[in-house]
Every structure is written in structure tokens, then in C-alpha cells.
């Protein structure tokens, strides 16, 4: 069993809007620190590589689906550094984003805690962007 943590963010936009924004890999650069996204078919059918703060990072996305599931895995070199199940759910005219991270092997408790804080601040940037 790996440690898991769930973050939730309420977003005052319909779930279709939030999902349609997030399902497009190019949009990741609009609310996180990665830049210059490009498809990386060698890494996988739904994988993109970006320029990250600490070098190239590959993100393996979930194919488009009617459940608004946006699970992803982040890879640096050969190692999966972050893995999360994400979903957009309906809340009246708005949405709730649930983000469950699983602490990867070799990631320390301190590093996992810090990653989750960064993740929450990214998610709040996303919220602000979507609610603009």
C-alpha cells in the first residue's frame, strides 16, 4: 500500500468546460510551470513531453472519456515521479475536482508533503483561471 492523499477544489464553471480545458494537453502550460508541450508518441499514445523546471518531463494522460476522468502519470527519465487519479464531478452549475495522489516508491514523506502543497497551489491557479 502506498500513501494516498486526496485534494478537492470547487470550481464555479460547468464540469464540461473544466474537462474540455484539461483534456487538452497543450493547456497544461497555462496553469503549471511546464512549457513548450509537444506530443511524444514514442512515450505512449496519450503522452506529451514538456520543458519542466528540472528538465524534460513526460506526462501520460488518460484518453478522452465520458466520465471526465483525467488520471495522469508524470515521468522524468525512466522513473514515474508522480501518479494521480483525477476527476471532474458535477456540483449543480459548478464542478468539484478531486485529485488523489499516490506516493511513489523512492519519494520521501517530506517530498510527498511538499509536492501536495505545490499541487494545491497549482489547482488554485487552475480555479482562478477557469473562474475568470
Amino acid at each position: 500500500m502506498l500513501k494516498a492523499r486526496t485534494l478537492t477544489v470547487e470550481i464555479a464553471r460547468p464540469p464540461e468546460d473544466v474537462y474540455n480545458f484539461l483534456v487538452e494537453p497543450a493547456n497544461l502550460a497555462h496553469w503549471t510551470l511546464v512549457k513548450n508541450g509537444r506530443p511524444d508518441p514514442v512515450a505512449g499514445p496519450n503522452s506529451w513531453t514538456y520543458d519542466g523546471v528540472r528538465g524534460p518531463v513526460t506526462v501520460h494522460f488518460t484518453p478522452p472519456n465520458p466520465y471526465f476522468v483525467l488520471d495522469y502519470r508524470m515521468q522524468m527519465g525512466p522513473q514515474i515521479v508522480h501518479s494521480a487519479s483525477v476527476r471532474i464531478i458535477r456540483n449543480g452549475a459548478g464542478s468539484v475536482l478531486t485529485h488523489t495522489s499516490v506516493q511513489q516508491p523512492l519519494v520521501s514523506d517530506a517530498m510527498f508533503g511538499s509536492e501536495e502543497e505545490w499541487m494545491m497551489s497549482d489547482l488554485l491557479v487552475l480555479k482562478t483561471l477557469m473562474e475568470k
Partner: protein
Amino acid sequence: MRRSHTISLYIDYPYDATYRYLADPRNYGEWAAVDKASYRPLGNGDWEAMTNFGGIRHFRFTPINAFGVLDHAVFVPGETLLWTPMRVTPNEEGTELVFTFYQRPGMSDAEFASAIEWVTTDFLALKSLLEAPRR
């Protein structure tokens, strides 16, 4: 937008088996807050039961899917469906379950807090049921 509360819990039971169990509507009466004896299928694919929180309700479940999505609607026949989001995902040899509960119209904050406690109890019952050694 309603207030929402998300519960997540780890179940020490393999993901495939957990999903298969929860995706089968026949098993819902085993762990949810319904009177098991009254729980029965209806002709249209929905289910019906007397609930522990009062009154007959109908239940509608999400078809089998590859994402572990287990949303279900609990509703008074003829009224609007309020879907309850629920999902399971793998965590090594076990399973993570995520469930979101909404404050319903007319529900006070105290009632909402109490409902969250009841729902949490349901999930702890489910966890015990799945983690108990199989005979």
C-alpha cells in the same frame, strides 16, 4: 453550488475484485444504508429499497466501465436525480475509494455534518466487509 465533502479511504482488497463487487447492483444492499430485505430490482434497470434514513428510494447505477466509476443516483421516484460521484482506483495490491457527498436542498449544516458521519459509517462497513477473510 452546493457544499460538498469528499471521503477517501484505502481498502486492503484488490482493485479488480473491489470494482467487480461494487459495480454489481445486487451487492449494494449488503453495505449501503438500506433495508436489505426490501432491496429489489425494478423492470427498468433501477433498484428500490426502504432506506435507513427514511422512506422508499430508487437507485440507478453507472454501467460497467474501464475507469472504476461507480456513480449512483438515490432518488424519490418522479423527482430529479441527484448523482453521487464515487470511484475506485488501484493502489498497489489494494484500492483507493473516493466518494463525494453533497449538501442537499433543505439540509442544514448540522444535518449535513451528521449525514457525512452516517455515510462514512457505510464505507467503513464496506471496508470491513471486503477486508474480512473470505470463507
